[in-house]
C-alpha cells in the first residue's frame, strides 16, 4: 500500500510549524505517525503536506513541575510509561499506558499525537479528561491552554484550530493519598477498548469519599466523566453496596450505538462492571485495605 502524494517538510521550530499550517490548510502534523500513517496507508487520510516534528527542539521533554506533568509533543508513549519520576507523580499514567496498543507502537507513537487524534475509545484522551488536564496550543496569535472537557468535541474531532499546534499536554499529579484504578475490556490485547473506566478516589479517616473522579471511554463520542457516579459516591461511606449502587448510574453515560463489537445494552452492562471494579480498587488503594 502507498499513501497518496504529499509534500513533506521537517521544520526546526514551533513558529515554522505554525507558519506551515497557515500556508497550507491541507497540511497535517506528523509526530509518531502511529495513527496517521495507517490512515494514510488505507487512504482514509490524504494530507497535502506532512509537517514532521522530528527536528523541532525540546518537544521530547517530560517535566514534573509545580504539581503538573508536562509532556512535550514528541514524547513517545513508552518514554512516559517508563519514566520513574512520572510514575511517582501520577501512577495512573503507567497503569493506563499498558493498555495503549503494543510496545512497538508505544515506542513510536506520541501521547500528544494520541490526544490530537482523539479516538473516542483511546486511553490517553480519557487520561486527560479523568485527571482534569489541559493541552497547550500555539497558533499565529499566541498560545492558549485548552481544558480536556473543551478539547474533545467528537470522535476524532478536537477544538484545536486548523492553524494551531498542540505543543504539550499538562497532566496534574495525583492528589496526596488518593487511590487510582483503570480497567478495560477489549477482545484482544492492545485493541481499542469496547469499554474502559478509570477512577481516582480520596477518602477521609472514616472511609468517606471526599473527592471522586470517574471517567470512561469507548462508550460515547468522546471520553466522558461519569458525573452521576461521582455524585452518588461523594460523601458516602465507601462499601461494596455503595459502590454497586453508584456503578449502576454509569449506564446512562453510554450513548454509543450498537456496532460490530457490541450492542449498547452490552456496553452498559460492561461499563457498570468496570466502574464497580475501578471504584473498589481505587478505594482499596486509598483506604490501604479491602473495602467491605
Amino acid at each position, binding site marked *: 500500500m502507498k499513501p497518496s502524494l504529499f509534500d513533506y517538510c521537517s521544520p526546526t521550530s514551533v513558529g515554522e510549524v505554525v507558519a506551515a499550517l497557515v500556508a497550507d490548510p491541507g497540511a497535517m502534523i506528523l509526530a509518531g505517525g*502511529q495513527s496517521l500513517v495507517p490512515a494514510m496507508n488505507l487512504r482514509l487520510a490524504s494530507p497535502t503536506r506532512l509537517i514532521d516534528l522530528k527536528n523541532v527542539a525540546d518537544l521530547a521533554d517530560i517535566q514534573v513541575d509545580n504539581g503538573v506533568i508536562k509532556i512535550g509533543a514528541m514524547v513517545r508513549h513508552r518514554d512516559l510509561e517508563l519514566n520513574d519520576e512520572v510514575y511517582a507523580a501520577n501512577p495512573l499514567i503507567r497503569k493506563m499506558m499498558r493498555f495503549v496498543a503494543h*510496545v*512497538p507502537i508505544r*515506542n*513510536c507513537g506520541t501521547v500528544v499525537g494520541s490526544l490530537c487524534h482523539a479516538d473516542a475509545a483511546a486511553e490517553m484522551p480519557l487520561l486527560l479528561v479523568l485527571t482534569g488536564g489541559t493541552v497547550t496550543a500555539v497558533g499565529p496569535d499566541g498560545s492558549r491552554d485548552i481544558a480536556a472537557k473543551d478539547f474533545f468535541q467528537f470522535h476524532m474531532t478536537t477544538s484545536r484550530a486548523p492553524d494551531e499546534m498542540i505543543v504539550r499536554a499538562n497532566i496534574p499529579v495525583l492528589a496526596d493519598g488518593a487511590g487510582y484504578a483503570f480497567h478495560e475490556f477489549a477482545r484482544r490485547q492492545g485493541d481499542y477498548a469496547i469499554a474502559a473506566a478509570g477512577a481516582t478516589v480520596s477518602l477521609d479517616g472514616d472511609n468517606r469519599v471526599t473527592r471522586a473522579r470517574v471517567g470512561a471511554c469507548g462508550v460515547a463520542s468522546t471520553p466522558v466523566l461519569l458525573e452521576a457516579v461521582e455524585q452518588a459516591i461523594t460523601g458516602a461511606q465507601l462499601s461494596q453496596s455503595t459502590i454497586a449502587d453508584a456503578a449502576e448510574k454509569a449506564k446512562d453515560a453510554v450513548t454509543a450505538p450498537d456496532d460490530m463489537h457490541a450492542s449498547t445494552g452490552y456496553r452498559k452492562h460492561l461499563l457498570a462492571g468496570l466502574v464497580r471494579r475501578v471504584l473498589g480498587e481505587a478505594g482499596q488503594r486509598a483506604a490501604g485495605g479491602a473495602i467491605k
Partner: protein
Amino acid sequence: MNRIAGNTAEQSADPTQLTRMTVNGETVEREVSVRMLLSDFLRHELGLTGTHVGCEHGVCGACTVMINGRSGRSCLTFAVQADGADIRTIESVADENGDLHTLQEAFRDCHALQCGYCTPGMIMNILSHLEADDEIDLSDEGIRELLSGNLCRCTGYANIIKAVRQAADTGNWNRT
C-alpha cells in the same frame, strides 16, 4: 558479503528527499520519495527482503524492525522519518557465517515457526526486549503480552512462548 543492493535511478515524479541512515551498521544514503515507507525502503531500495510486509497498517507486526534500539513498525514509519536513525533488521541477527543467534536457535529447537512469515518481526520484537534493561515477565501471560503485537497464523503461539523462555534462560543478555 555486501548484502545491501546498490542505488537505483529514481524515476518517480513524487517529491523526493535525500535520506541517510545506518542500517545494520552500514551507512546508506538514498534519494527517496517522501511517501516511501521504511518497510519498502528496506526491501526495495536496499534489497533487505527479510523484513516482511503483512497488513501495512500496524496490526500484524511482520515488518517490525529496531529503530534506535527499540522495536517499531517499519510500515508505519516513512523512510524520511528515519533520516539519521540507526536501523536493525533481521539480516543483522545471525552472524556473518550464518550461525544462528541464541533466539533463532530457540525458535528452531522449539518449532516456533512453520511458514516463517511472521518470524522476522517476532525475532526483532523479542530481541529488543531481551536486550533492553526493562524487566521481562516470563510467565505464559507475560510472554503472551510481549508477543501481543505480532500475529502468527501457524503455530498457535505455544511453541513461540517456549522459545522466548528458552532464549531468555540460555542467552547471555547482560541484563541488570
